[in-house]
């Protein structure tokens, strides 16, 4: 009995293992990816008459800019909301300037300069409630493409796609499955912004640290992903494209300080001299880990925030303080670990850092070696992306998912909420 049972058991076992291939796993696979569909615009539509619309709610706030009592809020690729911010506790929405493809702006001597996809526009702001387009420089910014029938290729619209695919179980960790058009998001964007700190007259506005568009003297400087463009504003109503300087890929921000430009890239900070303002010359490069890096320069110190993220290809989250007294030899002074720092601003010895989902933090920056240990206050209840801190009145204007939030920092240890301009989805 025993032997026959064992024999039968072994036989059954052998049969089963021989038929192992009959016993298959089953698998369902869903591929999720972002598809970028090209968006075209006809020249006539791009250059249609621009008028000031009635005030509209902010739906997707982009960059912000402060000029005198006015606050400009970019509605991403749609236009600019103009607020009278004389009383930061009650900002007054005075209208929406509908500019196709607008991302950034700067204001000098009552002239608003704004991008519109490939064009640079100049608006007279004598009456901010009714800006008047006074000039358009066509085709000065990089275009993604041109189609004889559909016009300018101006954007790629991302959409999340979920689709069932045949299950192709990986035997290695590297898997190739096609689908969609794969374009890095930042290549598709040609964004511009503005900064503060140059030897500019008082009629120049103030932009955030994530700016790609800045003013210095009689010139407007813009950076795309890979180059620096210089516009001569000696005739403010008729800007002229003066030169283009190739820098290298990964350019993110531009910041003016005295007669220099500090350009943040994903691999380092470039310093350009403006001895000849129309033809900037590279003086030095301060290299750092591969990371996204807004820059703010104050009192011969450059504050650089490095953060990780999908497009930043890095795992560093820190603040670096660099001595830039000798612009040919920037020296790293200190490094402070951070959570996920993005935009920043400095007023006196106060350093404002947007820490993404941890909100806005205010540090005492009087001793660059001890910044990380000297947190004065933190606003935790907002997601913070960029900040403009004004010296007078002492107001910090913060952008984030919630919208535009303004705080009084007369007492930097206790920020006081003044107002919120909510994003449409909040």
């Amino acid at each position, binding site marked *: *009995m025993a032997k026959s049972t064992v024999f039968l*058991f072994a036989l059954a076992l052998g049969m089963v*293992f021989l038929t192992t291939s009959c016993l298959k*796993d089953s698998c369902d696979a869903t591929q999720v990816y972002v598809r970028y569909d090209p968006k075209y615009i006809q020249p006539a539509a791009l250059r249609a008459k621009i008028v000031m619309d009635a005030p509209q709610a902010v739906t997707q706030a982009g960059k912000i800019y402060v000029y005198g009592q006015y606050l400009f809020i970019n509605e991403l690729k749609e236009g600019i909301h103009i607020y009278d911010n004389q009383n930061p506790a009650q900002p007054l929405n005075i209208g929406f300037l509908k500019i196709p493809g607008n991302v950034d702006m700067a204001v000098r001597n009552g002239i608003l300069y704004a991008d519109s996809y490939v064009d640079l526009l100049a608006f007279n702001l004598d009456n901010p409630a009714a800006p008047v387009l006074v000039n358009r420089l066509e085709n000065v910014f990089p275009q993604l493409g041109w189609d004889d029938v559909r016009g300018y290729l101006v954007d790629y619209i991302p959409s999340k796609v979920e689709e069932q695919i045949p299950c192709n179980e990986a035997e290695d960790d590297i898997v190739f499955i096609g689908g969609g058009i794969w374009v890095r998001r930042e290549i598709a964007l040609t964004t511009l912004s503005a900064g503060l700190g140059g030897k500019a007259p008082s009629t120049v506005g103030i932009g955030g640290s994530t700016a790609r568009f800045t003013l210095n003297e009689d010139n407007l400087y813009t950076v795309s992903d890979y180059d620096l463009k210089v516009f001569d504003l000696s005739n403010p109503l008729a800007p002229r494209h003066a030169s283009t300087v190739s820098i290298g890929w990964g350019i993110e921000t531009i910041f003016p300080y005295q007669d220099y430009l500090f350009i943040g890239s994903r691999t380092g900070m470039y310093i350009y001299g403006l001895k000849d303002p129309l033809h900037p010359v590279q003086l030095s490069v301060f290299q750092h880990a591969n990371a996204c890096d807004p820059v703010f320069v104050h009192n011969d110190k450059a504050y650089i925030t490095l953060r990780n993220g999908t497009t930043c*290809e890095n795992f560093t989250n820190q603040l670096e303080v660099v001595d830039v007294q000798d612009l040919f030899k920037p020296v790293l002074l200190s490094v402070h670990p951070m959570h996920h720092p993005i935009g920043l601003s400095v007023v006196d010895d106060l350093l404002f850092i947007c820490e993404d989902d941890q909100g806005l933090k205010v540090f005492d920056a009087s001793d660059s070696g001890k910044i990380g240990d000297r947190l004065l206050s933190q606003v935790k209840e907002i997601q913070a992306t960029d900040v403009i801190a004004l010296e007078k009145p002492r107001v910090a204007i913060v952008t984030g998912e919630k919208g535009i939030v303004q705080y009084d920092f007369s007492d930097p240890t206790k920020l006081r909420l003044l107002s919120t301009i909510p994003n449409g989805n909040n």
Partner: protein
Amino acid sequence: MAFFKQMILLCLLNLGVSLSLSGQPNQESAYSGSWYRRISLTAAAGSSSNGILKKGPGAELAIGRHLSEKIQIGVAGGLEWLGNRPYQRFAPAVVEGAWLLRTGQRWSPYVLGSLGYGFAWKDAGGAYRSVRGGSRWNVQAGITRKLGGHHQLLADFGLLEQHAEAKRDNFWWWGGQDNYVHESFRLHRWRLRLGWVF
């Protein structure tokens, strides 16, 4: 690695509980009410969905109670590899029930079923963002051979179904959070088990 250590500790704990319970008197003639402990080694084999042979070892600790001479129930846990992918290795935790035939004989056939959950884990790095285990069931038929006292050797064979999920990068060099493949698996394996009951 930490997970492995935890699992080993869990197994040792299980073994400790088993040994501590072994001090209870067993009734020679009537199993009803007595405890059993079992240490087993397993081997599983089957094919992945694209037809590639998948096999792997496992180890299991079980503890249970005879409800009657022919029926026993218990719980079991351990580690089991059903292949070489991150979603093919598990730390199962199951409840089991067995029906024993011919309990008075030296050789005694039995059938056993189990139902539970298999926990999966991933190593750091690689293209897999996450793996998740799932429910599992298993039926086995086998035979025991009595040794001295309550000691028995057993061998059984059967079918195992284990559910699992994995999320992996689509293009590994493109790190976008919205670019991935989500897979749901039902793994099927023939399963051989050799064990020692005490």
